[in-house]
């Protein structure tokens, strides 16, 4: 996320050249990398998270069919149980659902959508929250009061409720023009608007500490404009906590998207995310076809658990009190 911010500012080439190299070698001997190597659980979690991202990125090469393409689905292949059971059939590793969709392929594509919505939601929430937090902390006064009151009010309500409301309002404004692709955008916006408060509060807090330091006074004295001071000088010093929030929020964003899709207000059956797959599979639980819901559920749980473990470790590793 820090890269995105840096490239947005006007002169990215102003960074000294040796900074990049020494950053890498510094990272290798840093306390954080050391504590990463010390924690086996974190390494496993990181490996699983990376694996999930790779599966999502290479979904179209790994899947035996494109589950979003109705022409590739055959009803003859419907409700086949996983390959290791008595009725399993060869290409369908984890069985098929009622439309003849290969569960493994559907999970890969669903994972791609869940991760895309989650990452986009976190970036949107982060950009919004960081911008508002910087403005509130740097300028203070009335602006600060208004932004933080809104944040306080919103914080009393759980994210899922806000996401549902934004979702409902978007639907009523857009009416019947909502297809799967615009639903993706609606989901990202709902998630972004539900999670910006955490960033805004943290950034505001750090900015209020940082802005009284001498380096900010120096930057102001040489006449740098406020946005530049905020982005180039103050923001980098608040990056640690933001990274922790972003990691934990990624898990929350993925849960929120899955929940919305499970409740039937997220992605439609034609473009299923993991949550949609679980909702579809849930209908077949009583018929004994457990694999339709179990594997997407395991994938979702594994993904969230490993991201949460990473987030927990990152929080402890970046907390100087715990070293």
């Amino acid at each position, binding site marked *: 996320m820090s890269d995105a911010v840096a490239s947005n500012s006007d002169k990215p080439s102003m960074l000294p050249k040796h900074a990049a190299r020494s950053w890498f070698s510094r990272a290798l001997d840093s306390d954080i990398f050391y504590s990463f190597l010390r924690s086996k659980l974190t390494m496993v979690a990181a490996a699983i998270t990376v694996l999930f991202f790779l599966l999502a990125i290479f979904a179209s090469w790994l899947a035996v069919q494109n589950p979003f393409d109705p022409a590739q689905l055959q009803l003859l292949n419907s409700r086949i149980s996983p390959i290791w059971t008595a009725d399993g059939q060869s290409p369908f590793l984890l069985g098929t659902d009622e439309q003849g969709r290969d569960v493994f392929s559907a999970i890969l594509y669903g994972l791609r959508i869940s991760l895309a919505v989650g990452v986009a939601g976190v970036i949107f929430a982060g950009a919004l929250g960081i911008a508002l937090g910087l403005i509130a902390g740097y300028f203070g006064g009335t602006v600060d009061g208004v932004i933080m009151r809104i944040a306080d009010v919103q914080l009393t309500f759980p994210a899922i409720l806000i996401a549902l409301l934004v979702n409902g309002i978007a639907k009523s404004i857009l009416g019947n023009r909502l297809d799967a692709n615009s639903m993706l955008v609606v989901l990202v916006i709902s998630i972004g608007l539900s999670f910006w408060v955490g960033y805004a509060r943290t950034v505001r807090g750090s900015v209020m500490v940082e802005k009284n330091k001498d380096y900010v006074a120096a930057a102001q004295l040489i006449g740098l404009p406020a946005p530049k001071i905020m982005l180039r000088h103050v923001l980098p010093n608040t990056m640690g906590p933001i990274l922790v929030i972003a990691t934990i929020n990624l898990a929350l964003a993925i849960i929120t998207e899955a929940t919305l899709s499970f409740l039937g207000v997220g992605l439609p059956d034609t473009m299923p995310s993991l949550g949609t797959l679980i909702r579809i599979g849930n209908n077949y639980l009583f018929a004994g076809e457990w694999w339709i819901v179990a594997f997407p559920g395991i994938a979702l*749980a594994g993904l969230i658990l490993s991201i949460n473990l990473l987030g927990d470790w990152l929080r402890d590793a970046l907390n100087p009190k715990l070293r």
Partner: protein
Amino acid sequence: MLAFTLRRALQAIGVMFAVGIIAFSMFRFAGDPVNQIVSIDTPAAEREAVRKSLGLDDPVPVQFVRYFGNAAQFKFGVSYQFRQPVSALLMERMPATLELAICATVFAMVLGILMGVYSALRRDTLLAKLFQAVSLIGISLPTFLIGILLIYLFAVTLGWLPSFGRGEVVKLGWWTTGLLTLSGLKALIMPSITLGLFQMTLIMRLVRAEMLEVLRTDYIRFARARGLTTRAIHFGHALKNTLIPVITMAGLQFGSVIAFSIITETVFQWPGMGILFVQAVQNVDIPIMAAYLLMVSLIFVTINLVVDILYTVVDPRLRSTIGRAA
């Protein structure tokens, strides 16, 4: 103390006012209410008549005041999908949601405190580590997955508990309760666990952290020096001081429990307000959405207010600092 209470009450009214504006603008601007009531081939003159009868041609501030006045009397208009007054629909379903939320909170408090105290006092035992692992899973697993897992285990495989609905309910005036029948109690078990699990993990982590912190303080060391029994130190001195934040959090979380019951109610087809709200979002039934938002906000704001005031009653130190600040 009075000044503090008044200030907090004013803040609460301000929040409700803001939420009211949001609910009103949803009601008024997100889609045309007239279109929801008339059919597509209604002539324009008739549409105008409907518009006039709903008062939609009045100035917006007038409409807002009227909407707020009606909302204060629990009149939220007519649902687009059910063609019934929204308040009647909500009242009919509120007991189910409140009962579920209360059972879930009790479950979370009792188990959360017990597990938290145990894992703080016997930090290195296997059971304490197991609790920590369970709490991580409880936070990581989405609510609906836990619900599906429970249904698969106890309803589909073992057949012990019903997988949906409230069971038999008894009518007490306008309130319906499932607490007085066996099938009602059985139907409550799985939804309560599903809904309460997240709060339980939060409470457990909080109790554990607070206990560990309190056990390091000087007055506990002093109590040890005085030769008090371990039991008296742990439960009489340490636990008592950890309970204030725990009760605060459980209170503040009660609103979230009601909001999260949206998910649990959908999984278990529990006939409460949450499922009504989800249907409203699916079918763009704005009057129900707006009314639900107002109701839940009212619950949230009231709880926050009560907890804040109780906090100053319970903790005298806060009273003095607030008094000085004011």
